[in-house]
């Protein structure tokens, strides 16, 4: 092939241009720490990274929801504990009242205390968080989503801890009526209500356990996703710096070769 000077010039500038483009790309990766600077660098990787970021964002939200659920369940647990303590006291009062040797005034004292305790029970049973009842009617239960497609019920329907028509409050008001009429109090009814409360506490405990295990699993997959995202997106610095160094060497070699290309022509040897 016949070589002309224009040709040598074009070729060497094109090659130098190519090496500097490669170097600029590698430099951009090294300085940003990211492998994927635009979608065309790796369309598949980009979409993968977007999906992982989406999942990580969702997990962040689910974590907030999980704390919210824990708050609700703790409150429900707390209120039920208080109620069961109060109910214990009501039972003690019932045992006292069923004692036949009792001054007539003493039953009034018991009835007064019972009235106070009933109020306390009612207030606890109707407690809420930010306007949302902890023990709502059937159909108004609150569910919080704590994972993709995973919902946890964070309230208990009033039915579960308090029973229906002949439940806790009916029993207590009946006791009050019996006290007024100087009759024996139904201790078995009280025991049934107490058992119902204890069962409800067990239900809440089980839900909290479930929530804990969901939280643990989510932490695991969050770690896994973060690792994967980093693998797709992040630059291996040792690798990229080595690459940059070798590209720089190629560029330098190109420069030095180009400078030698034009040092002499036939003109230098003619007198």
């Amino acid at each position: 092939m016949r070589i002309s000077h224009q040709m040598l010039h074009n070729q060497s500038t094109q090659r130098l241009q190519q090496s500097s483009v490669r170097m600029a790309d590698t430099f951009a990766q090294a300085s940003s720490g990211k492998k994927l600077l635009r979608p065309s660098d790796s369309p598949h990787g980009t979409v993968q990274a977007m999906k992982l970021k989406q999942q990580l964002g969702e997990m962040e939200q689910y974590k907030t929801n999980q704390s919210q659920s824990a708050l609700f369940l703790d409150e429900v647990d707390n209120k039920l504990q208080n109620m069961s303590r109060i109910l214990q006291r009501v039972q003690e009062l019932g045992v006292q009242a069923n004692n036949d040797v009792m001054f007539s005034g003493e039953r009034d004292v018991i009835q007064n205390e019972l009235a106070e305790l009933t109020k306390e029970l009612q207030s606890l049973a109707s407690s809420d968080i930010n306007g949302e009842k902890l023990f709502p009617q059937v159909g108004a239960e609150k569910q919080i989503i704590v994972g993709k497609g995973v919902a946890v019920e964070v309230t208990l329907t009033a039915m579960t801890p308090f029973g229906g028509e002949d439940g806790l409050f009916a029993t207590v008001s009946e006791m009050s009526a019996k006290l007024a009429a100087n009759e024996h109090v139904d201790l078995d009814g009280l025991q049934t209500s107490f058992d119902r409360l204890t069962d409800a506490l067990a239900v809440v405990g089980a839900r909290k356990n479930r929530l804990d295990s969901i939280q643990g699993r989510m932490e695991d997959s969050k770690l896994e996703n973060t690792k994967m995202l980093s693998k797709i997106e992040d630059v291996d610095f040792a690798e990229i710096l080595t690459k940059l160094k070798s590209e720089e060497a190629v560029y330098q070699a190109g420069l030095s070769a180009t400078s030698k290309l034009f040092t002499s022509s036939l003109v230098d040897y003619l007198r």
Partner: protein
Amino acid sequence: MSTFQGLEVGKRGISTAQTQLNTTGHNMTNAATPGYSRQNVQSSATNPNRVFTSQSPNAQLGSGVLTDAIVRLRDQFLDTKFWGQNGHASELSVQAEALSELERWVQGTEDGNLQQAMQDVWKAAETVRANPNDEAAKAVFTERMNSFSATVQQLSQDVAGLTTRLESRETMERQQANDLLKSIAGLNDVIYRSGGRDNDAMDQRDNLIDKLSGLAGIQVTAIEKGMVNIRLQDGTSLVAGRSVESELTATSPIASGTLTGIDKAFAAIEDFQTKLQTLTSNFDQNSPSIDAAIASWQQLVGELGTKADGINRATETALLAKNGTDRDRQSVMGVSLDEEMSNLIKYQHAYNAAARLVSTTDELLETIINRMGV
């Protein structure tokens, strides 16, 4: 045989060598001129004279040298190949540029990222769902919706800006192509008047065709007296000899080159805009719809990335092919200074020898005039 034949032969030699020396000088000084093709002096021995000889037929005595023509060394086949490849490469490069800008807008900043904006809406909606009575959460949700709309609007604006820039570029490039057509017809005229001998005008014209071939896909055919006709690939005549037959318009059936590339980039951008619009019009506060919108956005980005990646690769290949052909062309038409230097020596010696012939003939004449019959 004339007495002065030696002087005539010497004169012809001097004159031819001078032409060759001057052409060599022209080549050397134009070594870096864009589009210049090296020129070569074609010369041949002139008609011989008959001399009487003892045997029949008579011998023919050579009568020296004369210049036939000065031609440019260029390969028409490589030119045609280059013009085709140039159109293809330019068509792809302009698309690659446009898509890479689109990619930049799509990528956005960490805050201006559309996926981030959509996910923020989703998070806010989830928070409202978990706390239906929390006014602050509702306010955050409204804010997130606003910020999502703003992000979409900004993105549409950026993309629309890209379209506007491409539109003005298209107008400019078309104008340039039409100017080139006029200049080419004008140079055809100059070449016609020189009877197809004006090498430098032909170089200039071919250099303009190099530029034109990048803007629009063309077919070039050589006609009489060194002129060329230029047609679009579907046969529409643009330049016929010395006149411009038709100019390029927005509806010209151009098959490749920057102008076609811009049209294809428009189509890609429009497709993107339509999909973005569908995505945002289906977007509301329900979790499933947000999920669907995020999924379509991811698909859109994936499609864009794949398309840009494909075009980037094709552009690289096309540029490589074009540069390869240009190298082949330069191998034929480019000036090699070493070659010209050695030619310089060759022609200088020819010149010196012809001059010596004249002085030798002069000595012979001196003998005849001053010494004979005195």
